[in-house]
């Protein structure tokens, strides 16, 4: 990185890297900012829809951040929220159409939640707070970091819910394969109910705070 001219920032300078990694831990949109909880409850019953949802949100955050950042000097201030909404809505409709065309069964399971990506606070939040005031590359990194952090939490939650609630992973009968049923093991159907997603998220927050003292409030 020393070969770079001092005036120009490196693509992956320390500051840029932190845009990517901060959301994964100390600034996680779900576990620290507690945004996007609604969809985290709804579509984490199974791993596959959670992965598709995570990828969809990832694509939308990156693209929405990129597009608004490219337009940031053209957007009239008075209608900027509307412009952001239109950008996000258009992207979400595109994602929905693509899912319907190529992963129909998953798109049926996600049903309204793809459309509701529009209302996911993470996306509007990142546009308003970040990409309207930053360069496209930084905005892409920020979008990637936040989208990946959201998807990551979704996948962790869905992993435990599908494994403990259904005994499968990606519909593959893991528990049966391990032979636990013969030993008297039973699936915990409660894991499939929405409240258990909150409890799993809370456990993740617990682990994260225990490992990251900077997140713990002083009093």
């Amino acid at each position: 990185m020393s070969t770079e001219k001092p005036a120009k920032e490196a693509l992956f300078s320390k500051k840029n890297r932190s845009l990517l990694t901060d959301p994964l831990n100390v600034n996680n949109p779900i576990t620290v900012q507690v945004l996007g909880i609604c969809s985290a409850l709804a579509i984490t019953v199974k791993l596959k829809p959670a992965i598709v949802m995570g990828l969809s949100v990832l694509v939308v955050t990156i693209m929405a951040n990129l597009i608004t950042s490219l337009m940031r000097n053209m957007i009239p201030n008075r209608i900027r929220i509307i412009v952001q909404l239109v950008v996000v809505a258009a992207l979400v409709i595109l994602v929905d159409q693509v899912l319907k065309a190529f992963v129909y069964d998953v798109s049926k399971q996600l049903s309204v939640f793809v459309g509701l990506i529009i209302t996911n606070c993470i996306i509007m939040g990142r546009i308003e707070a970040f990409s309207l005031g930053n360069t496209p590359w930084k905005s892409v990194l920020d979008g990637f970091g936040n989208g990946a952090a959201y998807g990551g939490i979704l996948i962790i939650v869905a992993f435990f819910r599908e494994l403990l609630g259904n005994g499968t992973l990606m519909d593959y009968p893991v528990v049966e394969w391990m032979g636990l049923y013969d030993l008297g093991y039973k699936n915990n159907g409660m894991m499939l109910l929405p409240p258990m997603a909150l409890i799993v998220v809370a456990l993740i927050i617990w682990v994260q705070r225990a490992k990251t003292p900077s997140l713990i409030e002083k009093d």
Partner: protein
Amino acid sequence: MDINSNKYTYIFAVVMVVLVAALLSIAATSLKPFQDKNVELEKKSDILRSIGVEGANLDSLFAQYITEQLVIQNGMSVESEVSAFDIDMASAVSVAAEERQVPLYKAVVEENTYYVLPLRGKGLWGPIWGYVALEGDGNTILGATFGHKTETPGLGAEIATPIFQDQFPGKKLFSSAYEGIKVLKGEASGDQEVDGISGGTITSVGVQDMISDCLKPYKAYLLNIAANSAVPTVDTMGLSADTTLITAAL
């Protein structure tokens, strides 16, 4: 240029909306064929599932098992401009039962003939639909599958689960007393009764109404099959006598 002037704001908004609209229509049009194919495959999968056939290559399975696709109106097989598979049940059920043109799929699995009837009706929040497969006698249910658009998960949406659907095999559609399947609260025991969904009463009633309504155009056709296939044993004597009566009444 002042990007906060009124003129610029209006121009920006108009240009943005037009661009976005164009982009979305292009995307929707170009992806339509793929989406239609998925809907078609799902329909085939639902029909095959009602006769107990599942598999990966739906197109070839469908061609293999579904031997005939008829258009039925008022109990008769009729010629129609639209092929049986392309009939849109949503608009079909909106006309009077006598004028309805509805599809009937004839399937042959291991030399047994089955008949598959599509269903379409109203649940609590939106449309519900399904397929009922009948055995060769045109009366006994072989299997039934249901689907719904927006029924409440855990309540009405349970009609799409095996717990509900597995009650149907072996039930009868026709008797002298009733045509259809009653979806009851609590004790369902008879040949024409199944247990409803607790907390999903309106959806359960919707299923019952859907079956009795969608059955109407097929009635004479199915009773005809029943009359022809009935073997005069003690068990079916009553049935065949009933069906002749009903057919005669028509």
